[in-house]
């Protein structure tokens, strides 16, 4: 027990040190702080992008879903894969545009494309509204992980307070460079730990993969396939499509994209990342192994399955290592979320309210926002109760509403007006909010529809409303564009 505490403490200290050292040799302007001076090569960008895979959500939630729900958990593997195939085309376009204009936030991108501050403000607020629940999720996970791995010696609240303090420290000092350095440590640890657990546990408890799955199938028939209703193939497909579109409209992902040194980084990553994220599979194996080995965890306790089976199987030093890796899965994504939210608030909210502020001032404001945001999220985590769960569920659907306006802006000129984009996003968000708060699903909204339609992810409706409003507004406000195309040599037409 003391061994596991010591390991947790040591890794925590190493992570902080790395995070603090990361800024050496770089003057921390806003561009350095938020997007690493756009100087990251394949490796760092790869780590930042891959950082999305191993958040506490995948570590605890991935194993928890496999444990509690079975086959539907596999959607995580699929949406990331499809998101990467999309990234090959999407990210170079975003990067190129941002690089030419030295953009630092996602809202900057919309402002530049649509030439609308109002739209930028909306995107900024939507972004922050989605980021905070995500940060809360990381802090919650951090609390669970540390208290489990310390055998209860450290309470979740203590863990969250110290974790947040460390996070604020290195984020303020090093910005995104701190994230990149700690990401390297995190991925190294998690890779080894997850693979070892995912191979060892099935053999230890069942004698092999085949034997494990046969046993599970006998004990829980239907657990290893998608059910006919509820989390059916229709649910699976719609969820995978929605979330794979949603990946790249997360504001912290935009920031990750901006850090790259060249656009080719994304093409290489699109080849490597699908394979790399296969490691998630081993997280599922841990969850599957736990279903029969440590039965009885229900509801949100399913998220504890990974630690329960680890504690039942391994010595305290190994549990300490697992906990330390888990700790990093909270810190690294957490730092990206903080940097992104702070940058948005400073650049796209403060900067708009006080337009005369210099880049230097905005940089300072951004860093000053970090402890404020961190504290706010921490208090939400500690006292938020049920409301957070609703917010968390909303997060993905909230950001996904930015997707139509993003894609329609990617051409040479946006295909829709700023007004249409604004109206579409607003309508989509209102739909998301009303659906989430009323707890509706397609089944409750339209009980007479066939089961396939009823099982669709409810986010589909909000996206449909969004696109419909965009189309309507575009039709109603259509006018002959008088000032047409500054004709840049268009690459689509070979000269």
């Amino acid at each position: 027990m003391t061994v596991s505490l010591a390991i947790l403490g040591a890794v925590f200290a190493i992570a902080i040190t790395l995070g603090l050292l990361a800024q050496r040799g770089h003057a921390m302007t806003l561009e350095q702080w938020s997007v690493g001076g756009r100087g990251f090569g394949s490796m760092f960008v790869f780590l930042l992008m891959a950082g999305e895979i191993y958040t506490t959500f995948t570590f605890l939630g991935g194993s928890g879903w496999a444990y509690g729900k079975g086959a539907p958990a596999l959607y995580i593997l699929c949406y990331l894969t499809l998101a990467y195939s999309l990234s090959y085309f999407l990210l170079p376009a975003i990067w190129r545009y941002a690089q030419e204009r030295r953009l630092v936030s996602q809202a900057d991108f919309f402002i530049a494309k649509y030439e609308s501050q109002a739209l930028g403000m909306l995107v900024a607020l939507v972004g922050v509204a989605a980021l905070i629940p995500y940060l809360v999720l990381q802090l919650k996970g951090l609390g669970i992980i540390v208290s489990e791995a310390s055998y209860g010696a450290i309470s979740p609240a203590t863990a969250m307070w110290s974790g947040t303090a460390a996070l604020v420290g290195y984020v303020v000092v090093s910005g995104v460079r701190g994230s990149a350095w700690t990401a390297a440590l995190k991925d190294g640890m998690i890779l080894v730990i997850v693979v070892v657990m995912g191979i060892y546990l099935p053999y230890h408890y069942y004698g092999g993969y085949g034997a494990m799955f046969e046993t599970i199938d006998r004990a829980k028939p239907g657990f290893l396939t998608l059910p006919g209703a509820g989390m059916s193939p229709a649910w699976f497909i719609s969820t995978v499509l929605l979330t794979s579109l949603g990946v790249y409209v997360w504001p912290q992902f935009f920031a990750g994209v901006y850090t790259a040194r060249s656009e080719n980084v994304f093409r290489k990553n699109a080849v490597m990342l699908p394979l790399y994220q296969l490691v998630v599979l081993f997280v599922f194996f841990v969850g599957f192994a736990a279903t029969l080995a440590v039965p009885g965890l229900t509801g949100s306790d399913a998220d504890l399955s990974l630690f329960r089976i680890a504690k039942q199987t391994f010595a305290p030093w190994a549990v300490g290592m697992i906990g330390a890796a888990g700790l990093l899965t909270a810190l690294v994504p957490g730092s990206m979320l903080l940097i992104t939210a702070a940058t948005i608030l400073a650049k796209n909210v403060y900067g708009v309210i006080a337009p005369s502020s210099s880049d230097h001032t905005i940089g300072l404001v951004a860093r000053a926002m970090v402890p404020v945001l961190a504290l706010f999220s921490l208090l939400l985590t500690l006292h938020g109760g049920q409301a957070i769960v609703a917010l968390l569920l909303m997060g993905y659907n909230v950001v996904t509403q930015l997707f139509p306006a993003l894609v329609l802006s990617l051409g040479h000129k946006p295909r829709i007006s700023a007004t249409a984009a604004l109206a579409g996003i607003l309508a989509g968000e209102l739909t998301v909010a009303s659906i989430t708060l009323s707890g509706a699903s397609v089944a409750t909204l339209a009980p007479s529809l066939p089961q396939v339609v009823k099982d669709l992810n409810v986010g589909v409706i909000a996206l449909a409303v969004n696109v419909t409003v965009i189309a309507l507004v575009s039709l109603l406000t259509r006018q002959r564009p008088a000032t047409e195309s500054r004709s840049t040599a268009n690459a689509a037409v070979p000269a």
Partner: protein
Amino acid sequence: MSAETPTPRPVRQRGQEWHAYHALALLPTIGMLGGLPFANRVYPLVLGLPFLIAWLVGWVIATSALMACILMLDRARGLASDRVPGELPETGQSATGPSEGAP
């Protein structure tokens, strides 16, 4: 040895240039999700994995392979260069005349 390209091509400016082989990138979505109703079974186990899991894993690996093919084809056409802005003098974003490669 990289031979000279037989036909002189204009140096690509910016924006995505589309080719038929880019449609390969749609295969993972179509295959992985489209085949789901048929792949939604436990047996036969493949390498010890339930058929559904094996099906999805197979598509993940195929996605990497397909994206690698696209990258290679793009490279062969000079569409995926490691151009680092600032190292090459870039013509700005406005129309400063097509900066053609020497024909």
